[in-house]
């Protein structure tokens, strides 16, 4: 237990030369954490702020879901008309030939896309960070084994595995897609984290932490990881965007979300036949939704890249 420290302020004061640092001027500056500084830099990036706004709306739609949807996504509110009906006040984005509301489809698609993007990113991020951190900090045999595993995963044709796996593990399930995307896209993150760790573990402050008696696990996750997080967060953001595109693509090919669920990819797939009749609203609105989401995420990533750059000063 705690013993009375020998050095206390009650003891004799340090001599004048050893006393207060003369150069230190008392300025009542507010103390900003790294995150506060990063936010300050992020805010100057106008496109990133806009991206954050648009993506915020998408996330809002995804969370609120049924509350903002004018119709139940499984309902058929309109009447079946070949080629569907164009945009109107009742159906903002028009309907498809069975009479489904395209606006509801787009909103529901946002739900699916955001869920897939976010959760697959989380899985990939956690796996990648843990594998990369252990690999980079431990080095030696552990590093070798883990990195060869990463090499193997990189060598497998990604799309092919996704198509096969999607068919195999339950066509159309959102959870299955999240797992597949998440478990296949972590190697990128792992490599990034490992690279940062390799340089950071030689840092003076890591040696100082070891000299204080901090355990390796604590050094890895408390001391090194926060310093390595910047590029990882950027990469995870971009990974989220690419997984959203991937979902649309796989669904478009008919290997993703099942037909009855209206994801953006499915909507585009339907639209392929519809365009023959000149019913542009089937493809336009879901397509715009994908483009807007991905673009806004990429802008956020750009802003984060600048904001989290440790060399950038205010």
């Amino acid at each position, binding site marked *: 237990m705690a013993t009375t420290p*020998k*050095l206390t302020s009650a003891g004799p004061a340090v001599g004048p030369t050893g006393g207060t640092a003369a150069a230190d001027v008392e300025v009542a500056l507010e*103390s900003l954490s790294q995150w506060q500084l990063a936010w300050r830099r992020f805010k100057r990036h106008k496109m990133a702020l806009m991206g954050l706004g648009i993506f915020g709306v998408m996330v809002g739609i995804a969370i609120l879901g049924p509350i903002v949807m004018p119709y139940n996504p499984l309902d058929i509110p309109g009447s079946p008309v070949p080629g569907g009906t164009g945009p109107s006040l009742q159906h903002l984005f028009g309907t498809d030939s069975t009479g489904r509301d395209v606006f509801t489809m787009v909103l529901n698609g946002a739900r699916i896309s955001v869920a897939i993007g976010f959760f697959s990113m989380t899985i990939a991020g956690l796996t990648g960070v843990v594998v990369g951190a252990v690999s980079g900090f431990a080095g030696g045999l552990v590093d070798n084994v883990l990195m060869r595993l990463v090499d193997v995963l990189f060598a497998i044709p990604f799309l092919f595995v996704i198509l096969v796996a999607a068919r195999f593990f339950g066509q159309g399930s959102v959870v299955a897609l999240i797992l597949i995307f998440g478990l296949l896209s972590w190697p990128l993150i792992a490599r990034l984290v490992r690279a940062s760790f390799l340089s950071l573990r030689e840092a003076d402050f890591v040696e100082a932490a070891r*000299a*204080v008696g*901090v355990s390796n696990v604590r050094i890895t996750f408390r001391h090194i990881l926060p310093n390595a997080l910047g590029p990882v967060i950027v990469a995870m953001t971009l990974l989220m965007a690419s997984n959203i595109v991937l979902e649309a693509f796989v669904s478009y090919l008919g290997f993703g979300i099942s037909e009855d669920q209206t994801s953006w990819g499915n909507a585009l797939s339907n639209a392929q036949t519809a365009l023959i009749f000149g019913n542009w609203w089937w493809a336009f609105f879901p397509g715009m939704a994908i483009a807007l989401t991905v673009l806004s995420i990429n802008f956020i990533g750009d802003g984060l890249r600048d904001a989290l750059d440790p060399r950038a000063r205010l």
Partner: protein
Amino acid sequence: MTERVLGPGVPPPPDVLLEVRDLRTYFHVMDGTVPAVDGVSFSIKRGETMGLVGESGCGKSVTSLTIMRLLDIPPAEIVTGEIWFDGRDLLRLPEAEMREVRGNDITMIFQEPMTSLNPVFTIGDQISEAVVQHRHVSQKAGWDRAVEMLRLVGIPGPERRARQYPHEMSGGMRQRVMIAMALACDPKLVVADEPTTALDVTIQAQILELIKALQQESGAALLLITHDLAVVAETVQQAAVMYAGKIIETGTVEDVILRPKHPYTEGLLRSIPSHVPRGQRLNVIKGTVPNPFRMPSGCRFEPRCPYAFEPCHEFEPPLAAPPADQSQQVACWLHVPEALRPGRAAVAPAPPVPTEAFVQVESVTRQ
């Protein structure tokens, strides 16, 4: 620094805090093996201060990192040696126990205050981390101790400063923080590895004063590692001079600085610029440190030594007290009585060099 010849595995008497015996730390690299520390022995009593002096690459930092067991093994290998600290041989402690020693019983002050603090934590968090870990106190108590330590090292407004990040502080301030960290747990030994090298001269003096004052107040022993003889002269009681992985001279600071016996120490002191009148060339020690892959077989200073004679080239001199002055130890054949020198059969008449050498030594004595 009295010499006890104790057998291996026998702990030193309790008044000795740290005793390093025949320590050899080698680095195995691509081109071969570098004997960075090659047979170093010294001891520090409780509360004593000792300086380890030498130029870059002589093995002084490796010695300190070996004591802390902070070297990566491999490439490093501790070939032989015992490090007795407070009755235990640190080299035989399991890593978990060693972690309890680090930051608690032995702490370090590092050379680079600008990079030795973690940029993502507040100063207070970093100081209290050690306290919370080793003293098993609450976060709150650890934080209070951090603030108290900041006040002790002379940082104004410690409550506010504790909440700040390293990037908000100057180099001198950060070194004060490092000192606060090193002393927060009341260590028995503080190892300061070039604590003032990265600081400008005015701050250097302040920091040395501070280290000295806090050392005396806390009663911790101090191992000061530096290349700067002036720093040693001002700060410590005992001094050991290292050259090419070996200690070549030890004794009290007065003896080593004012009455150096080894030609290398003498050369070092003579090369201090203030000894030379304006307009004259500075004194230098001729030649360069030996290539670590091809150490001289005899005395390692022999190729550069102005007094080298027969045994020096072939035989390594032991670190021993010269008959004339028992308070000091020196590794030089000049100070070994003729009868005890090796290879006497080969060298028929004993060389008359030593007396001349002594005269030269005295000519460089300061005031």
